[in-house]
């Protein structure tokens, strides 16, 4: 579906859909519900325990370059591979 078509379905200009898509502007929850419904879906909600245990690790990864992150993952994989092999 094009941005123009989605805009027509929810009564908003294409430029507004583009701003939502890029994340420059966030729609309200009610607008999001209408957008989802215009795409033929229903937005449902459920509660889950919040787990922020990855955050410090992600923060550390974000300090690295993309290549360093991949090399770090390969190092971890090699270490876990050795552990799996020893078990």
């Amino acid at each position, binding site marked *: 579906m094009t941005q123009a078509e989605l805009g027509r379905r929810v009564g908003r200009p294409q430029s507004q859909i583009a701003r939502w898509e890029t*994340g420059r502007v966030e729609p309200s929850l009610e607008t999001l519900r209408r957008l989802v419904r215009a795409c033929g879906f229903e937005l449902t909600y459920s509660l889950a325990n919040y787990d922020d245990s990855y*955050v410090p690790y992600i923060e550390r*990864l974000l300090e690295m370059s*993309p*290549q360093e*992150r*991949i090399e770090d993952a390969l190092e971890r994989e090699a270490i876990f591979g050795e552990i799996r092999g020893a078990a």
Partner: protein
Amino acid sequence: MAQPKRLDPQRLISTLVDHDVEFIVVGAIAAIAQGGPLMTEDVDITPSRDPVNLERLAAALTKLDARLRIPRDPSGIEFPIEPRFLGSVDSWTLKTPSGDIDLLFAPSGTAGYEDLRRGALSVALWGQEVLVASLPDLIRMKEAAGRPKDLAQIPALRQTLELRRERRQS
């Protein structure tokens, strides 16, 4: 084929780039490149299905000595690496001396290369610019795939996306 001791994404990706293959890195490597706290044992890519690109892809896979990866034969089996044959199915699971590489022409929840290219990021890997699928697209793929191992990774990918956005805004 001897078993590679360790995945060598540099050689896999560099060989594709050297052959001018149009592709987008998807899967765990794409997520890891953007800070996702994942692990991986293979490289997943979405190549363009353009006939010229399929020729380049076939040449790159030949150079990589790619074989079909099957569960009961660790050395993999030979298959005809021909452009039209490659483009005739949606996915290939391949084994090379540099590690496993999967070709996903239409990853779950997406329409393939052109669909992913719109949101893809260009990142520098081993001296070359490589397109990787965006985190929202990677999350979309995992939601559509729906397997427990995919769904389990979504919260960490969402956290990565949020932290990257916070950094951009600050």
